[in-house]
């Protein structure tokens, strides 16, 4: 934090603020560490929250340099307010998968099982990205799910599944990987029909535009993408 301000040398240095979707908290923490190691004298501050929260915060004048959203809708809100410097670029995709409690007590085998009556299924509300993706799959497969709860975030779905409250939930592949064994995955092929794309952009009020661009490049670079792959994200 006590670093001198930028442009003290050829390499940009200083403190930069990255607003990233909560689902990115694992890989982006690692990304930031690597980036700091590659750019001595820089600090990457990470603000994780739901994409919609982040969009509101940015619109309210948050001092963000970079915004990494979990969907296009919230990115469009930011871009629509003229706060995006340039076009947002996709840097990762995420696919839905079925999370079940350890041991899969309800014996879920595929997406069609979720439509069966009597299943306690939890998914995201359509208003949030993961819910929108699920709706697209429902439409594509013709399977209609009657969820017992339409959560406002993936975290909510995970919590219900991990505690065994729900028989199954629709979450991202990355969430299952991150959950460290508190839920198990039941993969299903139809997931490919609703891929969620994560865009990233530098913001117009960025105080460290060069650093921001460097960071975005790093996310797109080989090492950056490796980190995302490890967390379960796909290439855009």
């Amino acid at each position: 934090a006590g670093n001198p301000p930028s442009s003290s040398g050829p390499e940009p240095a200083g403190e930069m603020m990255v607003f990233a979707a909560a689902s990115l908290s694992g890989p982006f923490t690692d990304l930031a560490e690597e980036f700091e190691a590659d750019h001595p004298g820089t600090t990457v501050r990470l603000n994780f929250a739901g994409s919609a929260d982040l969009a509101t915060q940015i619109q309210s004048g948050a001092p963000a340099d970079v915004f990494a959203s979990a969907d296009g809708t919230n990115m469009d809100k930011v871009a629509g307010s003229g706060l995006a410097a340039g076009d947002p670029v996709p840097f990762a995709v995420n696919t839905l998968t079925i999370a079940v409690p350890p041991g899969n007590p309800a014996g879920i085998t595929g997406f069609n099982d979720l439509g069966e009556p009597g299943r306690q299924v939890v998914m995201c509300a359509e208003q949030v990205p993961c819910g929108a993706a699920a709706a697209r799959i429902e439409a594509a497969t013709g399977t209609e799910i009657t969820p017992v709860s339409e959560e406002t975030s993936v975290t909510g779905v995970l919590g219900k599944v991990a505690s065994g409250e729900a028989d199954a939930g629709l979450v991202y592949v990355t969430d299952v990987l991150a959950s460290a064994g508190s839920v198990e995955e039941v993969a299903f092929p139809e997931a490919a029909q609703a891929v969620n794309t994560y865009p990233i952009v530098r913001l117009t009020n960025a105080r460290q535009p060069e650093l921001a661009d460097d960071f975005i490049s790093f996310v797109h670079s080989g090492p950056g993408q490796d980190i995302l792959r490890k967390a379960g994200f796909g290439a855009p």
Partner: protein
Amino acid sequence: MIQLPRWVLAAAGLGTVFLLLPLAAITAEVNWGQFIPLITSESSLAALSLSLRTATVSTLLCVLLGVPLALVLARLRFPGKRLVRALVLLPLVLPPVVGGIALLYTFGRQGLLGGVLDVLGIQIAFSTTAVVLAQTFVALPFLVLSVEGALRTAGTRYEAVAATLGAGPGTVLRRVTVPLVLPGLASGAVLSFARCLGEFGATLAFAGSLEGVTRTLPLEIYLQRETDADAAVALSLVLVAVAVVVVGLSYRSTSAGTPAVRQ
């Protein structure tokens, strides 16, 4: 005729402004042209109605559990009372999400009482019952605090007189204690009701969010924010208005009742 130093008035003014400006700001954000359609959409009305219904039931539960708790804390001496009181007041300071998780681990299928409830055929999670439990959990301490305070203020002298006149504990409670603390009970109930109305985190973590069943007004607001900030702001204002009315009522009833208990 007590006077207050000027800086006290200034600081009080500053405090009031600090608390009121955000309300003004949110009011200023409202898209008034769309206000009525936004707050009368089907999902908004469903959420409002669910909130009012669950808050009413929860408040009733708070009274039924909270008045006895307050009586025990105000009137009895027993070892460990201080610890019990600290624990009872905990939900007041616990982040509601943590409270919701804890409820999940208690009443959920895999929870502490899961087996028992399963045998009884009771399914709490994802039902309106879960909303009521979450609200009761966070609002109960408000009621206990208010009623305990009223009980301490009222003192035990009237109760002692009633007992010497031959009134058993039940009669004393019904005919003397409760009428005497009625103002405190009313204001506690109203505060609890307001807290139930505003409950968000514990409900989200424990009960889920399904329109008409578990999605109360605060959850609806949170969800609307994802897509329609105008609707979220409009609904927030509805919530603020209901809360103001309810808290205002609480103070009306308190001050109207105060003369009943004279020290």
